């Protein structure tokens, strides 16, 4: 561990210490009388207002991995990496109407997870299990990837050694995270998100104001990038890079943005953020305010070009030998190179703290899925709310230990592959969740069959995608050539979108068939009006305590049963 950057490390550690304290203090914040309930531990009391929700969902969706990987992609491939911008533009108008329906029905029926809703709407615990398992499998590698973000900054600060000693800082960071999440539940990431997002805004805005001046202006930055892309060999020997999209990439760019947007709000951790908010109104206002993060993301993406102009080479790279190195280190290296040590320390802390918030929310979301849709459904049907909460808390610990083991034990590339797969498979729950919010017409068996077909098709296509530049025969990326689907074109398309189209076709055709032969449909526990209720409506209780009553003594709620 030589060349450790002391000033950076001190600032980094101090800020990390600050959020650790916040994480523990959070259990007292907006205090509930009893954290031993999923509405409290897992959804922060279901009572977050507009500001907290904005920080929470923003902290949740714009992860540390996003912040290092998007500029890394721009650095390597150019325009294609900018897909993150249209992706996060279209997602909010798309979910503006959908998200409030999910909030209403979940509030009315006390649903905590997307699988809870699927069970209620389609009357099938098997389908709910499929949705829950898909959610858990898709979320796990996402948590592991957050560690990749932390690793990138640790590496840049010179903290890397062999074996366990080198990994110790990472293990400690995640242990701390695991303990305060266990203790405080969703309140911890909600409180830390304030610090995370403030730091991220400061750090990105500083870079955008300061760095272009040092590099000779935006002309010089884009010029340097163009020069690099022109110098690289054209495909198939080199990357399909450039300042604008090559023709075959255009379809890939837009389908990647569209498909990723479709997937974003069915990830369990996004649903957790939505359901933790107090009202439909809070969600609608957030759909208008959240794109503020997209501006930051867009500016951050351009740090990739600044890194090119500044002559940054990733750690472990050997341009002569054609070794690309760890692209995720370009942004940390750029800060290290451009700013005084103390400010670089703040930037690194921003990235690392940026990893903690989503990792905490994701582990809570995965744990809630396990507690509600596997433990309560299959292992202990009579579980009390306290038992449910305890199982969820323990699962959140296990999930994080699992993520650390994955990162330490396996090549980080493996978790990147898994996350790629995760996006494709989570999309296969779209018909059951999103279309389910609009209609109960789809048959439960058809939804299950569509899910299976979509998964199989998606995995098969991903497996069939090589990436010769990285010497990979399989799981080479999210874009699939149309020519392999028998279409005469050199365009590529987002794999997840093809898979979900196959899924939908099966769902529609089979539903029609099953309805015709009168196969037993699931019982729909929801009513159309359930999708429109708002906090403050008569009989719609706003506090979790009331929700609890409703669930336990549903019939007596109107009479106003005193809980104590």
């Amino acid at each position, binding site marked *: 561990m030589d060349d450790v950057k002391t000033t950076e490390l001190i600032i980094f550690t101090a800020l990390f210490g600050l959020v650790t304290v916040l994480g523990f203090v959070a259990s007292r914040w907006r205090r509930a009388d009893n954290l031993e309930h999923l509405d409290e531990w897992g959804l922060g009391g279901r009572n977050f207002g507009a500001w*907290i929700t904005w920080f929470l969902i923003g902290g949740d969706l714009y992860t540390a991995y996003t912040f290092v990987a998007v500029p890394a992609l721009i650095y390597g491939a150019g325009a294609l990496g*900018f897909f993150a911008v*249209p992706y996060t533009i279209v997602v909010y*108008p798309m979910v503006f109407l959908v998200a409030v329906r999910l909030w209403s029905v979940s509030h009315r029926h006390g649903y905590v997870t997307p699988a809870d809703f699927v069970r209620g709407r389609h009357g099938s615990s098997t389908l709910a299990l499929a949705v829950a398992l898909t959610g858990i499998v898709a979320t796990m590698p996402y948590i592991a990837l957050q560690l990749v973000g932390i690793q990138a900054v640790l590496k840049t600060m010179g903290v890397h050694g062999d074996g366990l000693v080198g990994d110790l800082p990472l293990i400690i960071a995640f242990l701390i995270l695991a303990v305060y999440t266990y203790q405080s539940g969703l309140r911890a990431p909600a409180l830390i998100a304030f610090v995370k997002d403030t730091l991220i805004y400061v750090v990105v805005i500083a870079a955008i104001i300061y760095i272009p001046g040092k590099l000779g202006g935006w002309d010089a930055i884009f010029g340097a990038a163009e020069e690099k892309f022109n110098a690289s060999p054209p495909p198939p020997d080199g990357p399909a890079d450039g*300042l604008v999209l090559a023709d075959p990439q255009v379809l890939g760019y837009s389908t990647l943005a569209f498909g990723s947007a479709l997937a974003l709000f069915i990830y369990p951790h996004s649903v957790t953020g939505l359901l933790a908010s107090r009202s439909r109104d809070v969600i609608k206002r957030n759909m208008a305010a959240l794109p503020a993060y997209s501006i930051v993301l867009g500016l951050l993406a*351009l740090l990739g070009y600044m890194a090119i102009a500044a002559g940054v080479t990733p750690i472990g790279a050997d341009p002569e030998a054609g070794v690309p190195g760890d692209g995720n280190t370009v942004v940390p290296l750029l800060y290290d190179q451009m700013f005084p040590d103390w400010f670089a320390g703040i930037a690194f802390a921003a990235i690392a703290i940026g990893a903690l918030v989503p990792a905490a929310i994701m582990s809570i979301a995965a744990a809630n899925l396990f507690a509600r849709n596997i433990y309560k459904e299959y292992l202990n049907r009579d579980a009390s709310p306290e038992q449910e909460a305890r199982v969820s808390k323990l699962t959140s610990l296990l999930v994080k230990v699992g993520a650390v083991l994955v990162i330490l034990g396996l090549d980080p590339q493996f978790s990147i592959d898994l996350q790629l797969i995760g996006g494709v498979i989570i999309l296969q729950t779209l018909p059951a969740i999103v279309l389910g919010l609009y209609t109960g017409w789809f048959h439960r068996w058809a939804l299950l069959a569509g899910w299976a077909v979509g998964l199989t098709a998606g995995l098969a296509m991903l497996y069939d995608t090589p990436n010769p530049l990285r010497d990979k025969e399989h799981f080479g990326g999210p874009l699939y050539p149309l020519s392999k689907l028998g279409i005469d074109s050199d365009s590529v398309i987002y794999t997840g979108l093809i898979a979900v189209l196959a899924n939908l076709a099966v769902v529609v055709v089979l539903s029609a068939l099953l309805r015709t032969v009168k196969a037993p449909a699931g019982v729909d526990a929801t009513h159309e009006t359930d999708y429109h209720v708002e*906090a*403050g409506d008569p009989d719609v209780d706003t506090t979790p305590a009331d929700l609890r009553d409703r669930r336990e003594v549903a019939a007596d709620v109107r009479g106003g049963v005193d809980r104590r």
Partner: protein
Amino acid sequence: MAVHDESHPSSRHREPASVEEAARRRMNFSPWNLLLVLPLVGTLFPAIYNKQDPTLGGWPFFYWYQMIAIPVSVAITIIVYRATRGER
């Protein structure tokens, strides 16, 4: 964007008699919502903006167009939010 926690959405004036009635008031689809399609059309067809010129302050068109699409999309979402707010 005015984000403050206090404006709790309740329908104190004209108190609806039941949760069903309150919900029904919100069930009619407002044509304002169709505006939400605009950001999708403007960004999901790269043919519109996949070029370098005209540049703006050194930024190729591809980049500044998409960055400007963000506040435009926000404005549209706010318009829809305001216009459909009274439906409770």
